[in-house]
């Protein structure tokens, strides 16, 4: 293959640019919980593929059989929403949430350790408040004023209980976030401060 002369300084692909499948392992600080989250993650990942599949199905039904479904759009939104919510926990467990590390990068290892611990505790506390608030929300979305169980539905002709389930799911994920950040905090306290070359980002 004919290759044109290229400036040698730009010739090499930086080593990091490899179409690797998935980022590294679950970081140690996430503990067993991180591995558990990792284990179940594919279920929610497949949700996106399922969402794609049923959208295609809808197009097909509408154009070939002239009978659009009532359930596809609601279900797609639901599947995506579940994936988005779980994605937040998944990123926390893999420590993949985006951070601005300007300050973090210039401080020493001891300060960095304190920051890690403090951030984990703050995130845990915030998640705790949200979990409590979600519990109040879930009560309204799953119980009638008389105390009977009734999951809030979409109110459409299909009328699936998606809003009720999603709110409950959000509560569960927020509780798990509290646990995950607690584990982070404990493990960061235990860790001996090390000067890592490139801080996380």
């Amino acid at each position, binding site marked *: 293959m004919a290759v044109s002369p290229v400036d040698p300084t730009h010739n090499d692909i930086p080593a990091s640019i490899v179409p690797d499948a998935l980022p590294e392992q679950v970081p140690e600080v996430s503990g067993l919980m991180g591995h558990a989250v990792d284990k179940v993650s594919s279920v929610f990942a497949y949700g996106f593929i399922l969402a794609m599949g049923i959208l295609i199905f809808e197009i097909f039904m509408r154009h070939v059989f002239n009978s659009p479904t009532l359930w596809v*759009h*609601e279900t797609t939104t639901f599947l995506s929403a579940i994936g988005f919510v779980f994605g937040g926990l998944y990123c926390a467990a893999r420590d993949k949430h985006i951070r601005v590390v300007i300050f973090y990068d210039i401080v020493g290892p001891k300060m960095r350790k304190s920051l890690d611990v403090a951030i984990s505790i703050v995130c845990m506390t915030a998640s705790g408040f949200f979990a409590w608030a979600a519990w109040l929300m879930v009560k309204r979305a799953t119980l009638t*004023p008389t105390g009977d169980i009734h999951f*809030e*539905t*979409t*109110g*459409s002709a299909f009328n699936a209980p998606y*809003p009720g389930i999603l709110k409950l799911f959000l509560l569960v994920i927020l509780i798990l976030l509290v646990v995950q950040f607690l584990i982070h905090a404990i493990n960061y306290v235990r860790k001996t401060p090390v000067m890592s070359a490139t801080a996380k980002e």
Partner: protein
Amino acid sequence: NAQEFTLKMQSSDSAGVPNFELEQDWAKRVGVMTGGRVEVEMLPVNSIVEHAETQDAIAAGILDGHITDTSYFSGKDPAFGLIANPVGAWSAPSEMLRFVEYGGGKELMNSLLNPRGLQFIGAVTPGLEAFVSSVPLDGVADLKGLKMRAPEGMVQQVFAAAGASPVNIPQSEVFTSLDKKVIDAADATVFSTNQAMGLHDIAKHPVYPGFHSMPMLEVSVNKTKWDSMPADLQAILEMSIRDLAHDMDARLAMKDMEAVAAARKDGGVTIHNWSAEERAKFRQIATSQWEKVAARSEDAQRVYDTLVKYLTAQGMI
């Protein structure tokens, strides 16, 4: 007099829509009528919480009240869907308002809302919605196989029963889908607003006056807050809503007629008006769906019973 109560109310309308301006005018009038003792702040849709979440937010004391389409709470209880838009029951705002004020509607609403922490003050309505279509529709038979968008609530079910194929796409995709003929028709809103949004540029066969939907907008506030108000302020608020209902009906109807006249003058748009027989046919299909919704919950059954009793007494069915 010093200000005694602030009411943060979220609307189901956007800031730039005529209906929101009418609601803001109402808020100002309440201030004047109470001598400044009640200050109402109208907030546009989704500004504090999403449209379907206001009921919970009011109950929690986050918002003080809302002016919103009761259908949005169909997912909480089908009763809300039935009372908000019993498709086929009303052919004019005054008919619905009579039921609410004097036919048991208000008591019914409060029996649904009080246990949830809300107090119903009154109802208003933007009026009969016009139907947006890119194909000529002159009767029920033309609805067969019509690919159309309808929102949650009764409307979708009624159209399905009438032979149409409702698609549940969200409001944000209505325009592009209509434009590219992914759908043929859409349940949107009143004629003048549809016209302003350019819907008639892409779907040139609107049905006006509409035949399919007249949403009830409920005005309700947090019950604890309401109960803490002295009787004079409560009475002023109740009366002001009755006036708002008149204001909204009159001014939006005028806007509609203006828009219809403009559309007729410009040409290019064919306005379809259904005959009395076709309207009756659709009405019959719609009423046949009420029972199905009623069967879904105890409260929905109660709404059904009250409604049918009233309509029968009035000789309307």
